């Protein structure tokens, strides 16, 4: 009995973003739902970034620190290590700018960003410390220092998007637009940013995802809805989605609890890495394109999975 394959007739597609000085890395561009090659094109595979901090993290579990032993206090060495570990992108987080930590100046942050950029040959994501006003100041200087490098900078929020967008436009970067798990807020921010004449394909949507077990389902559904919106022609939802998975997954109790504390949960190493990997691969099913991770083993495992998912399943 012949089955007539059910294909949706989507009218539009996700915008394509290019990264790096020579635009060598592309994300987005899909004309169908995630990995349904039988129905449309998936020209680019999702990209995986590993995080680097400019301030030695104190509360990371040992399992997460171990692969970076000796480089956690040296962002340049750490970034190189990430490239060795196979990260497609290096995600520098300028944590030292935080007023509660070192309150580093925008100039110092820019110098760090420049040093890291000069040491590696993969594209960069650069984020501030999460304090919106400070991030605006920091990103302004960082954007300048990395003119022409075509980085992805952020996070731009409702409060600081004007400065961040302006910096990106002047210096040729793309912007991460963050809004908390709400499709309308996200769209609103994209509209405001494009009204400043930032091209739509230089925005990545950050829906502020939660980890497996900690609200993953909200982001999952927002992302599915955004992708459907994009395919049906909503240009203000047709941006690649970036998911900061590492920071969320490694906060989960299931990732942090040791073998002794929770023997009934199995070995911490396997469980914590699966926590990060499954959070990522689940978001990939919902339409995530850029994943910011922490553990190199997660990068390795997600890559193997994506290689398989990128193989055609056309009928």
């Amino acid at each position: 009995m012949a089955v007539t394959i059910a294909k949706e007739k989507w009218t539009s597609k996700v915008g394509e973003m290019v990264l790096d000085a020579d635009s060598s890395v592309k994300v987005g561009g899909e004309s169908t739902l995630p990995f349904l090659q039988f129905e449309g094109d998936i020209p680019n595979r999702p990209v995986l970034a590993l995080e680097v901090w400019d301030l030695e993290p104190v509360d990371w579990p040992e399992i997460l620190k171990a692969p970076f032993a000796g480089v956690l206090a040296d962002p340049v060495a750490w970034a190189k290590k990430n490239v060795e570990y196979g990260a497609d992108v290096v995600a520098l987080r300028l944590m030292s700018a935080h007023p509660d930590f070192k309150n580093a100046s925008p100039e110092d942050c820019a110098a760090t960003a420049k040093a890291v950029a000069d040491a590696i040959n993969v594209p960069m994501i650069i984020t501030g410390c999460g304090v919106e006003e400070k991030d605006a100041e920091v990103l302004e200087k960082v954007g300048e220092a990395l003119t022409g490098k075509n980085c992805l900078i952020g996070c731009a929020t409702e409060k600081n998007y004007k400065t961040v967008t302006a910096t990106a436009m002047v210096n040729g970067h793309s912007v991460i637009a963050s809004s908390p798990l709400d499709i309308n807020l996200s769209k609103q921010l994209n509209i405001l940013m494009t009204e400043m004449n930032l091209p739509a394909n230089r925005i990545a949507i950050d829906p502020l995802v939660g980890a497996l077990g900690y609200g993953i389902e909200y982001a999952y559904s927002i992302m599915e809805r955004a992708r459907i919106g994009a395919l049906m022609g909503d240009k203000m939802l047709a941006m690649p989605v970036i998911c900061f998975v590492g920071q969320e997954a490694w906060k989960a109790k299931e990732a942090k609890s040791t073998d002794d504390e929770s023997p009934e949960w199995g070995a911490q190493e396997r469980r914590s890495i699966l926590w990060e990997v499954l959070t990522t691969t689940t978001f990939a099913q919902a339409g995530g394109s850029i994943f910011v991770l922490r553990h190199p083993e997660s990068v390795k495992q997600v890559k193997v999975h994506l290689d398989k998912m990128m193989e055609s399943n056309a009928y």
Partner: protein
Amino acid sequence: MALTGLDIFKQLPKTNCKECGQPTCLAFAMQLASGKTSLDKCPHVSDSAKEVLDSASAPPIALVKIGKGEKELQLGNETVLFRHDKRFEHPTGIAVTVNDTDSDIAGKVQSINKLVFDRVGQIHKVNLVAVKNTSGDTARFAEAVKTVQDNADFALLLISEDAAAMEKALEVAGANAPLICSANAANFDVMLNLAKKYDSPLVVKGTDLNELAALVEKSGYKKLILDSGAREVNKVLADQTQIRRQALKKFRPFGYPTIAFADNADPIQAVVDAGVYIAKYAGIVVLNTSDPADVLPLITLRLNIYTDPQKPIAVESKLYEIGNPGPDAPVFVTTNFSLTYFCVQGDVEAGRFPAYIMPVDTDGISVLTGWAAGKFTPEKITEMLNSCGIADKVSHRKVIIPGGVAVLSGKLKEMSGWDVLVGPRESAGIPSFIKQRWGA
């Protein structure tokens, strides 16, 4: 797709005899279409019309039951492609495999029985033990099935394509409606008859979607689970999506739950594949691992994907006592979002000291969401401090709030008159916080 009143009318006797309580057959058809009456009210409808109407009003994916009594697992009745369209109804059944060649089958089953996790106040566990005829030996399979049946807390999934082996296994386990896996083009008639004989659900396996549809059509049986034969994750995703889409379009042969096998040779990738199957429509996912480090993430994913998007899971907003708290025990304030409450409860318990937890009613949302939405406010906390009876239970006047909402402390102290201690941001920090800050 539901039938319209007119579609239904065409199937009725059109005599307007009024026995159904409606003035005309057309009026009855209209009532039926809007679900306000049921077909059995009309005594004159023909059997053939009944069949047409029943099947048209049946859910797009049949409800299928595996096992009996407490061990019963229900699958199917799904109505949407995306959880945000409504919700997913029956969580993916998780099966863990035992091979009939395994050395300590009873021991392995015991370890599967332990795959039970307490999360957000609910028990979450695997659902089936799959017994696989890896040996190819008939007697050995039956013996393994017996051992599993005697020891397992869950219903059984019997995996063998050898009809003779299945027959023997069913002599052992057939009374408990195990899932028979599977009928393919070669063994079809015998397997189907076994399923009928034991009134048990049956997996139908095609080599592709076309063959699968043909076999289902041929079976005339309703207790089915579908296997398209795909085993690579990218292809399984495509087939699962097709089966769900076609079922929702009422392509009848695909109107049953599905089964997917996470048997990737790489054990980590097998877990990842299983995650895809849980998110994307599998009725059952069969695992080869019983390592809790593999199963816990999958069970958690299933819980998340199958949560009703319209209702966050909440706990009752009342004073909870952990251990046997005395008058000097600490008091923790949190919200009544289940996930939040149980994070706090778990960490308070981990610290091994008696305490009170007071979850404020935030309509089941988290601390920061509640704060941002104006539902976790000094006013509400004060109100609960005054009304829940805590003032009579403790001799001190100190309350601990989550670190994420430190900004509330000034106003809360002013309004309630209680001293406010700002706790750690993450509840995991509670045990050490108590050691350092609660005059022990």
